[in-house]
């Protein structure tokens, strides 16, 4: 039973991976970027658990810059995805411009809160 379930899981992941391979390259790049942000956030949380929460504002701004980046990247991914019919009226250039503007605001706030 156990062997069959692990085999099932392997089949599942293989199916998932082959389905994901069909994703356009620009979306894969965004996914990589999101992964990078989430991974950086996790490192900081582990570091805070080890060292303590002393410069708490620095910790918050570090983690929130990662989370904010990830959220904005996910928003961009939703808007530039061709298969998403909800935003088919929105030009990908417009979505990218929004993304850049939001990132500028985010990093401005983060820099203020970091020190």
């Amino acid at each position, binding site marked *: 039973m156990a062997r069959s379930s692990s085999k099932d899981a392997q089949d599942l992941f293989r199916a998932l991976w082959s389905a994901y391979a069909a994703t356009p390259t620009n979306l894969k790049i*965004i996914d990589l970027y999101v992964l990078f942000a989430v991974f*950086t956030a996790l490192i900081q949380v582990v570091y805070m658990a080890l060292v303590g929460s002393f410069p708490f504002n*620095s910790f918050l701004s570090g983690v929130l*810059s990662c989370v904010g980046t990830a959220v904005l990247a996910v928003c961009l991914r939703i808007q530039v995805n061709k298969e998403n019919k909800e935003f088919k009226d929105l030009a990908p250039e417009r979505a990218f411009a929004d993304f*850049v503007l939001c990132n500028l605001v985010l990093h401005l706030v983060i820099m203020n809160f*970091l020190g």
Partner: protein
Amino acid sequence: MSKLILLFLALIPLLCSSFSPETPSDRRVLVLLDDFALKSSHSLFFNSLKSRGFDLHFHLADDPKIALQRYGQYLFDALILFSPTIERFGGSVDAAAILDFVDSGHDLVVAADSNASDLIREIATECGVDFDEDPAALVVDHSGYAVSATEGDHTLIASDDFIKSDVILGSKKIEATLFYDFSHYMRQAPVLFQGIGHSLNPTNSLVLKVLSASPSAFSANPKSKVTTPPSLTGSSISLVSVIQARNNARILISGSLSMFSNRFFRSGVQKAGSPIKHEKSGNEQFLNELSKWVFHERGHLKAVNVQHHKVGEANEPAIYRINDNLEYSVEVYEWSGSAWEPYVADDVQVQFYMMSPYVLKTLSTDGKGRYFTSFKVPDVYGVFQFKVEYEKLGYTSLSLAKQIPVRPFRHNEYERFIPAAYPYYGAAFSMMAGFFVFTAVHLYSK
């Protein structure tokens, strides 16, 4: 004529040397007597006061001309009431006037006796001392009496239950050198007492028992049989008490006028049951030392020259910052009767106080009167006080308070970069760098 004026000018400083913060000893003392015969029968006590520089003014207690103050100024620094039987003082003096006299910081000595009047009892009660209500009662002690030629009724008591305080009774012990059984004994000579006992009002925390009766004493009429239990018994009976009021006025209350007399000063004493016969009773030394205390020749402290500054600086700042290190110093002197001498003790404490003491430190002393310490301002900002509240048995109380505000760090007094936060800085900047890289890749990947 010019010589006279010169003499008068020379005398002015002497005439003006009354009670002042600079010379706290009393100078002018009013003595109210029942009878001028007391002047000679108690002359040893009065002469001791005169030889210490006191200016004694003797009056009969019912003299209509006596007055404690004139034009709102007190004429005397201290009052001795050797008039136990007086029912009404002459002139403008009454119990309220005497209590006002004490309330304004002047000293008082009251000696009662058997048949003490209601007036004297009222004054004593106001001071926290209750004499035995029974007018015929005397303190009787069938085991601690003084042996005399006639058997007597054991009302002449030899007591040596003194308060343990060098400042009140003087550092020289009341003692007599004796040669007994080929060995050299130093033993305190008991004090002779014949009079009425009193109890201390338990609600009055300022009154102290200086000489108490022995556990076998009781207060009753010695001429009649004791049928009911006496109201005052044992060592709760106080024979001599002192009070130091909150304004540092000092009061001495004794249940015996005869203990001040020449006869008791000069009399030998042998306590019943004790083989030692003292040549001389302890009365003279006991009462002289006690009068030195009452008239502020001893145990009067002053604190001057309060200084505080940051460590490494000399000037007193107007404000401190939290976590500053500061140094505090104060000078404390004791009046010796003629000069201010350094006060040496190891229990003077300073508080850094805001609603409650945040810092309480014992001050170290250099033995020359200067007390100092250093401490760190707590991590709390607000308006603080440096407080020295020094209350020690027998000494006048010191109460100093100096206000000082404490501010938090200014925004530019914090650390600019904290080493522990470098990973967070790195994460934030790597997110910015990542944003640039991603933008480039995203734009040119098509």
